[in-house]
């Protein structure tokens, strides 16, 4: 049991009835209920039809698939697509760089994944409801603006002739424009900042909801014990958000290789290409632009497998560490 959980135990021990399922896992009497299973069967059927059935399409990765000809009309090529990714040393170097970029961005994302919690917890400390609501609404706005438009705005502000450079030049601070957009330096960092700006407010919604779900009795009893504002935050709010956080964290670890491509696509240029090309963008650049469905399938399949393996591993670790699995 973690220290947080111990602390939580300490402040909650008078509300024994409210023990959560997770910790009150006493075995229930009787046999397993098939009736309950039947209740969810229709939904499992939907999952099967829309998610599992289409997996037959993975066979395309062994063909040179052309939709007009169908599978029977397309050539069988075996593992050509898989081999092709790693054929020459130069290619290997390229792929390695791409994977380094991918993992770097993913880990930076994971490292900063606590920020939405901080956002939610601190916003919860804002007492004026109107302010809270306005902040909450405004900070979700970037989430709704497509990356294409974000780039347009970024260009207007940060290009060589953009606002920031004109202000800096006019005030005599710099003489030549700073290359914000077309520089190969700090690419990972700037990309992280953009995605944080776009995602933090939106990501906090989950935690804001979770905070409202916290049992008020916990706060009451802690206050009776003399806990101050920060102690409440540290010993009640944050520990109560942990289960949600941990689950989301585990899910994002399994998503290590999927960081999407839209953001990197709009920001890519000759000068930052080396550090910005993540796997999804690379696949787009080498495969989909040439409309190679089979290669895309092969890569999608590899990614799916790796994600599932990661999920299983993470789950095992969680089981070791916490005694319960995430999924």
């Amino acid at each position: 049991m973690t220290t947080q959980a111990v602390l939580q135990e300490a402040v909650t021990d008078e509300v024994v009835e409210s023990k959560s399922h997770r910790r009150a896992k006493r075995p229930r009497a009787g046999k397993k209920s098939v009736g309950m299973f039947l209740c969810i069967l229709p939904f499992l059927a939907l999952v099967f039809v829309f998610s599992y059935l289409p997996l037959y399409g993975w066979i395309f990765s062994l063909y040179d698939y052309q939709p007009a000809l169908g599978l029977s009309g397309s050539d069988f090529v075996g593992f050509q697509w898989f081999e092709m990714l790693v054929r020459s040393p130069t290619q290997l170097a390229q792929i390695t760089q791409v994977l380094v970029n991918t993992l770097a961005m993913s880990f930076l994302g994971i490292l900063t994944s606590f920020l939405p919690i901080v956002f939610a917890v601190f916003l919860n400390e804002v007492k004026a409801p109107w302010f809270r609501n306005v902040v909450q609404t405004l900070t979700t706005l970037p989430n709704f603006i497509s990356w294409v438009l974000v780039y347009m705005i970024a260009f207007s502000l940060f290009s060589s002739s953009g606002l920031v450079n004109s202000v800096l030049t006019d005030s005599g601070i710099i003489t030549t424009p700073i290359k914000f957009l077309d520089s190969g330096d700090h690419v990972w960092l700037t990309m992280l900042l953009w995605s944080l700006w776009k995602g933090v407010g939106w990501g906090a919604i989950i935690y804001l909801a979770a905070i409202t779900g916290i049992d008020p009795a916990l706060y009451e009893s802690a206050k009776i014990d003399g806990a101050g504002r920060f102690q409440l935050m540290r010993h009640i709010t944050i520990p109560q958000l942990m289960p949600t956080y941990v689950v989301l964290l585990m899910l994002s670890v399994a998503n290590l290789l999927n960081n999407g491509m839209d953001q990197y696509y709009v920001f890519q240029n000759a000068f930052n290409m080396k550090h910005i090309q993540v796997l999804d963008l690379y696949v787009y650049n080498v495969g989909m632009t040439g409309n190679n469905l089979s290669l895309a399938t092969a890569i999608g399949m590899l990614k799916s497998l790796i994600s599932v393996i990661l999920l299983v591993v993470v789950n095992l670790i969680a089981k070791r560490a916490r005694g319960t699995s995430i999924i």
Partner: protein
Amino acid sequence: MKRREFLAMAGIGTLASVTLSSCSLISGDSPKAASTSGAFPTTWKKEITVDVFDDLANYQGIQSGWFAKIVKDKFNMKLNMIAPNVAGGGETLFNTRSAAGDLGDLVVLGSSQHLDEALKGGLLLDASTYYKNMTSVAGYKQAVTKTNPGDKGTFAFPTSVSKLKPTQSSESTEPTFGPYLRWDLYADAGYPKIGTLEDLVPVLEDMQKSNPKAPNGKPVYALSLFKDWDGNMMNNAKQPACYYGYDEMGFVLAAADGSAYESIIDSDSHYVRSLKFFSAASKKGLVDPDSPTQNYSTMYAKYQAGEVLFAFWPWLAQPAYNTTENMSAGKGFEIAPLKDMKIFSYGAEVYGNSNYAIGIGVKASDPERVAAFIDWLYSTDGVYANGSQTGSAAGPKGLTWDLNSAKKPALNAFGQNAFLGGGTKQVPAKWGSGKYADGVSALNVTTVTAVDKDPSTGYSFAYQMWPSYQKLIINPLTKDWSKHMDGASTTMEYLRDNKKIIVAPGSGYVAPADSSEIQTLRNQIKAVIVADSWKMAMATSTKQFDSLLKDMQDTVKGLGYAKVLKVDMEHAKEQNKTRLEVAKKFG
């Protein structure tokens, strides 16, 4: 015909069609027997709506306006445009629709690869039975035969066909490529002589120095580049190669007359020469620093605002900057007289543009009517009416133009408003409703090129080539330009008279699609070429440039450049062979 022979013929016919349908169809209806009466009906009873799958269209939905009215009156038919360009998702629509076995009633394909897949997949109907009745298309028999090799049937109709000789340019008054600069500033600089590409740098430097700020107060740059259209190479850097008679074929630059083939990454290629040119300009501060990060629309807006002095194409700079107002003030883009240029020009295509094709969908509800419609698109009326979005045809006679007192074609008041006056007028009631631009054919496919001559007028379908039009648009800018160009009235005339143009015969050659393996290698390699080219173009020292060049050469070689180059080289040579053949046969 004796009864017996007739039966035998019919039997063979049936057998043939059965065989055809069994091998060409995945599923569904076999082609319906056509009326063999020898002509299409002139009236069509039931109104239908046909789905038009059109790779080239820029509009999705039901065709409206005057073109819709013509089609409705003639064929009692509505066109429901399905346009991947507009629908989005790149190849998604083509892939899903072809996987489902039905592209649409009328199909316009935008690449030889699509045509290839559609043919192999049996998505196009064999129109042989209707082809017999297609009298307008019949005028371009060679092209049809070329598009449908062998005697398997008539599945696809060629586009951009022409009755001009293949050695004649297909361009009307302006070439596709050309070094265009701000003529007014060039005049201010005293019309300096320009020997070759590199000599542009000091000229542009002078022009930029004398005009450092645009009217909006922003800095002016001689060159402003953009990244959106980069393909096998940096698009902007390919253009100067075209001023010397080269065009691209993958990673190869091939001379229009087959005299030379270059690998673009070679240190002495025209491509690297352009990069050096850019780099030299960068050194002098002539290249817009926004270049690597901006897209086409931002750059276009800069042309409109007068922030750029040089353009690679007339069709970029002139619509953006040569407004009536600017031109009457003597300002605008005109071609720069490079002494040694030999501009690449596309010859007329006797066989048509083999990248695009028109066909009837295998599940078309009324294939006969669709065939009749296709035939009409190749008729004089059809060319005038359909070729008016990007094809520059004049529009239907009576609506936009008439014969003047000298029996020569001239734009009428409505036409002048539509093409020169911003198109503010409503279409006359008998032509339907809406403005001219609203009713333009959404098919956006050129059946017969607009530079071809209308036999009834003796002038081309393109109004820009009519003497009446050229008289209409004279202004201080063109006057001054003409004065310094030995009185030439159009750019093409100047280029032809001074032998500064080289026409690549229109052979209709299309390189076969890459194997998937080559395609993947190509995509990996071109990403490297494009990225490094940009760095070279913006490089401000020779040392930096050379090390980048070396780096690029080494990297792409490691990625298997030689393998792709070999394929491209073969294609380029094959293309030249067909050009020579065509020139010999029709020239």
